[in-house]
């Protein structure tokens, strides 16, 4: 029974990917896409009821339960948004039915790969899953086949591949470190075995391995010196993919990094991964928040905001300790929900206005009040104003870090404030300026966007004790 739940999380997307690749008719396939995503989400919820048994290939613990539920939930809401988004794309002729079929199949393949990466117990399998997720998103980013989309996809492909290659080298080094202790063969790649014996691994080899893993998976997280693919990929692909990239795929790469961090934490002689992560996180926050000021493309702007928030999250996990880990987890959840809600709004806005250029969009609260105020609420949330959830999680990150490293925390706060200024400055004209561009009402599905925002609002005011207890448990696990 329990094994069935785990495999269902993988089988449902895999089967639907195959089905969607052959079925014609975009209305039906869009619905099928939604149904499949919903089924996966419901299945993942049942992980809380049945206790699955972990094997040599698959693993479920409290840490990845959080990630899986978040991933399948946002995949589901994004598929609802995607259905109304692509209808418009078909009508305007930006996508043909053949490409749409491809798009839906890739969407479910991506879900499959992300779920596999999250429940893999084998570090080799995890690497393969992240690689597949990268390749599917590369294909989807390039789907419009314009100059910009091709360039973005090419850049993403090359940088993503290099990152993933470095991560594989790191994985091989981990195996080399494990081999003298746990012996040759499969055990040397099983994460739960590795973490049990990590204390006896050769620390020098582990250090080098972690540097490669940090650079490799860090590229996929979008950390600052390695982020170059991220803004292009977000700006040029279809908006549902931007939402999934920001909200989910970055988290999956982060999850891989966290697994290795847990392994290193067991070995006392190895370097502490914390300071490395804190440094990269801070660089990302400062860099991305400064970049926000000169954005001209609205999707690109929110892509930089994603880099900033991933920086904050990596900073929190780098600090470590139950409190900072709790804050990091909460911030990750809040960011996923908020950022995908923002992309839902931005996607419809770009369709109504026929452009992504900030200068050509204006007076949204007048022309499209629901979308405009929805985006405004999202932006208020993402910059960290009270009473929304991100305020709370950022507050927790800052207050938990302050006692350990006051100066670094000051830098972090500075970055957050710079980002707040940048985003509000840019978004002000879009919201309240002169109405510009077409003013046709949007045929939008508002449900996904407002569901996310309502959850974020609720988290800012009241966190259910069950959730708090669960997150605390995971935070303890992360060490």
């Amino acid at each position, binding site marked *: 029974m329990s094994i069935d739940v785990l495999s269902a999380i993988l089988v449902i997307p895999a089967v639907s990917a195959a089905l969607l690749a052959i079925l014609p008719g975009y209305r039906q396939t869009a619905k099928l896409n939604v149904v499949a995503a919903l089924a996966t989400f419901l299945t993942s919820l049942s992980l809380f009821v049945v206790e699955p048994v972990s094997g040599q290939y698959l693993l479920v613990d409290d840490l990845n339960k959080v990630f899986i539920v978040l991933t399948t939930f946002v995949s589901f809401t994004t598929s609802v948004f995607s259905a109304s988004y692509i209808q418009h794309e078909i009508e305007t002729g930006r996508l043909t039915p053949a490409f749409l079929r491809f798009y839906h199949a890739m969407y479910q393949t991506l879900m499959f790969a992300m779920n596999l990466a999250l429940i893999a117990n084998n570090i080799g399998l995890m690497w393969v899953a992240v690689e597949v997720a990268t390749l599917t998103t590369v294909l989807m980013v390039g789907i419009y086949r314009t100059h910009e989309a091709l360039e973005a996809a090419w850049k993403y492909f090359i940088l993503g591949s290099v990152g993933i290659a470095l991560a594989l080298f790191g*994985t091989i080094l981990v195996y080399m470190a494990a081999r003298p202790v746990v012996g040759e063969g499969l055990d040397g790649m099983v994460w739960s075995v590795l973490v049990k014996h990590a204390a006896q691994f050769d620390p020098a080899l582990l250090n*080098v391995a972690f540097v490669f893993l940090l650079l490799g998976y860090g590229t996929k997280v979008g950390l600052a010196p390695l982020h170059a693919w991220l803004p292009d990929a977000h700006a040029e692909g279809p908006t549902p993919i931007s939402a999934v990239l920001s909200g989910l795929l970055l988290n999956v790469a982060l999850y891989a990094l966290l697994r290795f961090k847990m392994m290193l934490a067991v070995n006392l002689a190895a370097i502490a991964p914390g300071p490395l992560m804190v440094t990269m996180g801070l660089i990302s926050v400062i860099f991305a928040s400064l970049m926000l000021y000169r954005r001209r493309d609205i999707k690109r702007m929110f892509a930089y905001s994603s880099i900033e928030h991933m920086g904050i999250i990596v900073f929190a996990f780098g600090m470590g300790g139950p409190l900072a880990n709790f804050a990091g987890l909460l911030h990750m959840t809040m960011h996923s929900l908020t950022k995908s809600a923002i992309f839902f709004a931005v996607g419809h806005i770009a369709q109504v206005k026929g452009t*992504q250029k900030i200068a050509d969009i204006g007076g949204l609260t007048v022309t499209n009040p629901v979308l405009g105020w929805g985006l405004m609420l999202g932006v208020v949330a993402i910059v960290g104003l009270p009473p929304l959830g991100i305020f709370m999680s950022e507050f927790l990150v800052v207050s938990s870090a302050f006692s350990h490293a006051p100066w670094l925390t000051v830098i972090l706060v500075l970055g957050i404030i710079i980002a707040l200024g940048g985003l509000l400055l840019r978004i002000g004209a879009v919201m309240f300026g002169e109405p510009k561009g077409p003013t046709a009402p949007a045929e939008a599905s508002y449900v996904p966007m407002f569901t996310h925002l309502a959850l974020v609002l609720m988290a800012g005011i009241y966190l259910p004790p069950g959730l708090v207890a669960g997150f605390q448990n995971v935070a303890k696990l992360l060490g």
Partner: protein
Amino acid sequence: MSSLQFDIAHLLAGSLVLASFMMLYQDRLYALLNVYALHAGVLALSVAWQAYVQQAPHLYLTALIALVFKAIIIPVALHRIIKRLGIHREIENVIGIGLTMMAGIGLVALSMVVMLRVTPGADALAREDLAFALSVVLLGLLVMVTRRNAVSQVVGFMSLENGLVLAATGAKGMPLVVEISVAFSVLIAFIVIGIFLFRIRERFDSVDVQALDRFRGERR
């Protein structure tokens, strides 16, 4: 392990690094592809030797994949693509060949220093293999960075993957899962690249990545 076995493994892995160096100074696409085929052939020999030394028969499969797929099919296919698309056959380097070679020497020295220092516990063959593999990976990165042409960047990436295979086979007893996955990912990567090349061809007159750089959504 006898010293002869070690010496041969050492020789083959060293030849792979040498082939990587040969890639650095090629200025014609066809020549670059030939060097890549040589690179993959040396890899196949090296992996086969590892299979023999470690008495790990499944590694012969990896060697076979390297020989058939990487050393023959991919270079031939890329030859055809270049001919059919009429891609410029000269490679534009971002920096001069002399400087590139110097950088390459530096990278190899770096990987020797790093890998030999952190693996005193491992057996000698694995140590050498890892150090050489890291050199090949870094040289592959260098090829990607210093070339403007999309095809030569892809070749750089594939030579980088060869370095990964060398590392994976050098790590004794590494589960088969990984070898297959490496080969598989190369296959997928190649399909993706093929699609890209054709799409790029549909829209552009050149496969020069610089042509793609023309517009970036934010250029003022």
